[in-house]
């Protein structure tokens, strides 16, 4: 049985429909990538899972429970942590305080603590007393990832962690992913960068205009199929 699942998930902003029946699954220990162009609905999907957008209860299931209608704080307490699009550090908080917010509610023993997060991203330890917003973009992204890990989540949702970062920095950050996976967490990475997504993921979902247009193992998907699913076949 899958750990996390959406069933016929729809999503609206007022009258505007952003998701049209999205079904995705994530198994224990698996890493899944969601790729798609700007505006495809990836962030809306993440917001629906994390509870920022309230859904019908059965549209999102986690560990056999219907969580679609739960508020975000309760979903996080169950073990779904988010690295939000745009990092969203708290400007009034130092780096360390930002990290501590990750385990504000969900305090479970596990592989991740301040020490192990600093082990994963040593630069953060040097900067721990600085305001989060004084850091470079890549370092801020490390804080955002570390903050999510602090709750020892069962599922980690990462929304476009490479957005606006230089390629070398992206490489540095993705270098942390094998260690994150080793701890047993299931991961969803949302990416526009298809190459990066293919490298880290066991399976890939491609979205276009609010629908899943292609899914499968990276090795089974041809470049043409991905191109068509990403940009539309006629394009």
């Amino acid at each position, binding site marked *: 049985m899958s750990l996390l699942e959406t069933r016929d998930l729809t999503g609206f902003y007022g009258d505007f429909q952003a998701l049209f029946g999205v079904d995705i699954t994530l198994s224990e220990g698996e890493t899944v990538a969601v790729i798609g162009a700007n505006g495809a609905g990836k962030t809306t999907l993440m917001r629906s899972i994390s509870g*920022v957008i309230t859904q019908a209860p059965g549209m999102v299931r986690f560990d056999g429970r219907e969580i679609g209608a739960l508020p975000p704080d309760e979903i996080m307490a169950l073990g779904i942590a988010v690295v939000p699009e745009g990092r*969203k550090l708290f400007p009034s908080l130092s780096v360390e305080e930002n990290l501590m917010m*990750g385990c*504000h509610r969900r305090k479970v023993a596990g592989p991740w603590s301040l020490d192990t997060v600093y082990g994963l991203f040593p630069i953060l330890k040097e900067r721990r007393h600085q305001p989060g917003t004084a850091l470079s973009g890549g370092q801020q992204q490390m804080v955002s990832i570390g903050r999510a890990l602090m709750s020892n989540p069962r599922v980690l949702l990462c929304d476009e962690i490479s957005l606006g970062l230089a390629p070398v920095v992206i490489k540095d950050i993705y270098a942390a992913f094998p260690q994150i996976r080793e701890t047993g967490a299931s991961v969803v990475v949302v990416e526009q960068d298809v190459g990066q997504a293919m490298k880290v993921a066991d399976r890939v979902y491609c979205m276009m205009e609010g629908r899943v247009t292609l899914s499968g193992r990276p090795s089974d998907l041809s470049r043409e199929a991905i191109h068509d699913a990403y940009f539309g076949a006629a394009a």
Partner: protein
Amino acid sequence: MIWVDTVLQGVLLGGLYALFALGLSLVFGIMRLVNLAHGDLIVLAAYLILMLVTLLGLGPFVAALIALPVMFAVGWVLQRLVLNRVLGPDILPPLLVTFGLSVVLQNALQEGFSADSRRIPAGWLETASVPVGPISLGVMPLLTFGSAILVTLALQFVFYRTALGRAFRATSDDPVTASLMGVKPASVFAMATGIAMVVVTIAALYLGTRANFDPTTGPARLIYAFEAVIIGGLGSLWGTLAGGIIIGVAQTVGAKINPEWQILAGHVAFLVVLLVRPRGLFPRAFD
């Protein structure tokens, strides 16, 4: 020497104004809510202490100690049941609701306690004073000022040294992301207003023992509180303390020059500070 005395009396008076203002500053800093009923809630707490003193024969300090948790609960419930519902991107609904609450409180107190002005008896403490060199300082004003500093230190500690304070600041920055960290903004706000009402109760103790009050006393206290918060810089607790002291000193100095100028001098000081530093003395780095 007489001027030193005047300024010192003003500083001590400023402690009272800071106590009026700190709760307002706390709530505004966390949820950008301007509570127009803040002054009336101080008066409500003063009547609560007065009741405990007269009905149970308690001393004012013991009565205030009992009133503290009661007022915390009042604040918590008020936030949960009323204010959380009107908080949002639009600042007008909370202003209207707290204005309405102010009117309701004044009329309810009027019904319950009549329009007569009252005072919380503090016995020998009312007139006790200690000589400091050639100057003599009242014990109650000294206690008031000491309490203002202690309250500022305590709030500062909660804000910057505890998990609750971290959640306060995070929620103030970005409630949606805070909720993704497991924070329930509605309960964080309820805690904040509860704590603000604890400060309000301490302010009420010193307001009620220092001078007469009646059900309509609130709005004037609200103005001093506003001025102290704004002079200090929105959201800065030490700034609020400094703001209270500036108004207090301006009032006593003004009164010394001409007794009719007391209130006016406080307002003038407020305007002068705003002219020189439009964002207050200790504005936040960002907003």
